[in-house]
């Protein structure tokens, strides 16, 4: 499942940046998980155990000292939450992350529409940049609709869940992506009309 693949690759990245108390270059070869009839969820947990078993053993030896790198490493089975519960949230998070939020983007005068995933952007600036890139072949110049832009003839608008066309940029980003159904890059006089209202 896509979600779990993401989780596993995240795990690999985590391991790469994990701080361990060991000589650089020494890395015990990964022992394969013993064959078990479990589904991949359990295999994930076993992989989890593998990369953490090293850091866990520190607990017994260095009970007094709590070096900063050690505190950051996750410990097996701590906090004591059942895998069942942990997985319920992780699976759902992964599902949400994998799902994406694709909306159509139309631009006045362009022969075809595009589709973008709103979830990959962190804010309006990134979105605008992405839209510029998408439609630059139609020679736009700058896209307006945000603060400090002038001299161009386009406004980025969106249709919200009530069916109204709104100017992009007024509401907080999170609220925007939860209500945006599609985007439209409006041109010419229509755009000027929107921009003139404060």
């Amino acid at each position, binding site marked *: 499942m896509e979600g779990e693949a993401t989780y596993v690759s995240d795990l690999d990245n985590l391991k790469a940046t994990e701080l361990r108390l060991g000589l650089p270059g020494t890395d015990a070869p990964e022992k394969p*998980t*013993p064959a*078990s009839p479990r589904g991949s969820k359990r295999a994930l947990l076993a992989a989890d155990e593998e990369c953490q078993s090293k850091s866990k053993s520190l607990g*017994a030896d260095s009970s007094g000292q709590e070096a900063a790198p050690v505190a950051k490493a996750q410990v097996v089975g701590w906090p*004591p939450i059942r*895998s069942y519960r942990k997985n319920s949230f992780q699976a759902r998070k992964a599902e949400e992350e994998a799902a994406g*939020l694709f909306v159509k983007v139309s631009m006045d005068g362009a022969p075809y529409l595009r589709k973008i995933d709103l979830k990959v952007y962190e804010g309006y600036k990134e979105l605008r940049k992405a839209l510029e890139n998408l439609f630059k072949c139609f020679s736009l110049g700058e896209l307006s609709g945000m603060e400090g832009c002038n001299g161009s003839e386009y406004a980025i608008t969106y249709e919200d869940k009530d069916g109204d066309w709104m100017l992009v940029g007024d509401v907080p980003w999170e609220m925007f992506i939860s209500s945006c159904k599609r985007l439209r890059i409006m041109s010419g006089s229509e755009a000027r009309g929107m921009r003139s209202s404060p």
Partner: protein
Amino acid sequence: MRGERSDMSEDEDGGRGGAGGGDGAGDGGTDTPVPFSDQVLENVLENVLQFLSSPQDRNAASLVCLPWYRAEAQTRRELFIGNCYAVSPRRATERFRRIRAVVLKGKPRFADFNLVPNNWGAHFQPWVSAMAAAYPWLEKLCLKRMSVADSDLSLLAHSFPNFKELSLICCEGFSTAGLAVIAEKCRHLRVLDLIEDYLEGEEDETVDWVSRFPETTTSLESLGFDCVGSAVNFEALEALVARSPALRRLRVNHHVSVEQLCRLMARAPQLTHLGTGSFGSAAAPLLQGGGCSVVDLARTFAAFKSLVCLSGFRDVAPHCLPAIYPVCANLTSLNFSFANITAEELKPVIRHCHNLQNFWVLDAVRDEGLQAVAATCKDLRELRVFPLDPTEDSEGFVSNVGLVAISQGCRKLRSILYFCQQMTNAAVVTMSKNCQDLVVFRLCIMGRRRPDHRTGEPMDEGFGAIVKNCKKLRRLAISGLLTDKAFAYIGKYGKLVRTLSVAFAGDTDLGLRYVLEGCTQLQKLEIRDSPFGDSALLSGLHRYYNMRFVWMSSCKLSLRGCKEVAQRLPRLVVEVIRDRDEDDDDEGVQKLYMYRSLAGSRNDAPSFVEIL
């Protein structure tokens, strides 16, 4: 929720091993002919003893003399086995011939937290085989932390014609195929409760087990499958609910949307327990449109005159929450522990819940949410606050403020499980004074070895106050920065403590010694990552036969110490568990699990388990 399965909870169970307790008289299996007068006495005894239900009472009765032992064995109907390896199936079935209900527990509790490698054991197979032969009239089975295969379920379904109730709690190894056989073959099934189990093959082809129930009216009273990861055939489920007039408890999984739930509810207004599944809209969460009308949903809930327990809410759409207002006043049990809601979303709900006794919630509701709980739920007996982000360095959403608020508002509190990032001694002391009825106190300070964040002191005084002031305390889980002093308190005052969970605590062997010497009722001891060594282990030799088990992982034990225990206590099974056959054969013991047993070393131990 598991309120009704109190016999499965870690705090109140059937005492010392159902079968293992009174076996001093040897195998009662062989029957020599009994004189007539003795036979009369036994008949009288049987008629009296059949009214004894508690396993402790029965164990005591069985120790009086041989006739009593025999009479008790003949009249016992419910068999409680707290550790499946404490006695062999053969021995249990030979002694108790007329069992109708069995409770069987397997793996140590720390298996829930991935501390026990896969394939460690606790196989149901030898038990179901023995029972299939010995107990044809078996009606009820409750398994906890057992490894259950589909073939076991199949054998079960085919061997017990009168089978009525199956509860699987924290089990693994079976799949929807096994469920299908149960549904199809157990024609008198009343209860099928799957609680936090791990099903196999959820990503592969799953079997449509819900369609396999009898097509006629069923006798189902309880159906719980919220842990089943795969979607069930909804039409079949709806039809099943429609032809199950006795259904009182229904817990669906998160694949059931709130619209579908509406339809199910319309079929079963007599429900007392409802697990609501996702309680979110079938439409993608961020795109509105379609979805339930809150008014309709509320109306559906309003028809539920007998509803006392609500759970589920896996993907709760906050705007749907008001639908449950009509039933809140009657609720005694509410499980929001999978619902990521804020204090603002909780308040309007909890305000109505005057009769709430059990409440499980996520810390996302923050101290403010807990204050709202404290303000309304004056009858609260059990509270569990789970972390939304179960990592050590997550933002702490609840704190000493919430704990104090609860202690002030909910004076009848008996059981608490509280996850937080940090705590103060003062708050814990306050709780110890306000909640004198506490039987279970489990505080998990997720930051390991974290001191009182206001004073910088260890958390010794807080836990000390708990054991001192809460005179009914039976179960304790400690955390945070703790010195040997905390253990001294526990040993001195925790005279009724039966279960103790320790993590990242203590300074020296003295800590463990205090507990082993002081806690005379201790049954279950689980310790991880604490600096206790061989001499501490050996100081408890006088206790281990009176305990169900001891678990110690990542402590300072050595093979020599463990071997000595094994030698001195022949009826104790001492297992040393290695993670994946570590090459380093050092003297250190990473995981120790030891338990009293009449069965000797088990013959199904995997290669990474060494029995000393």
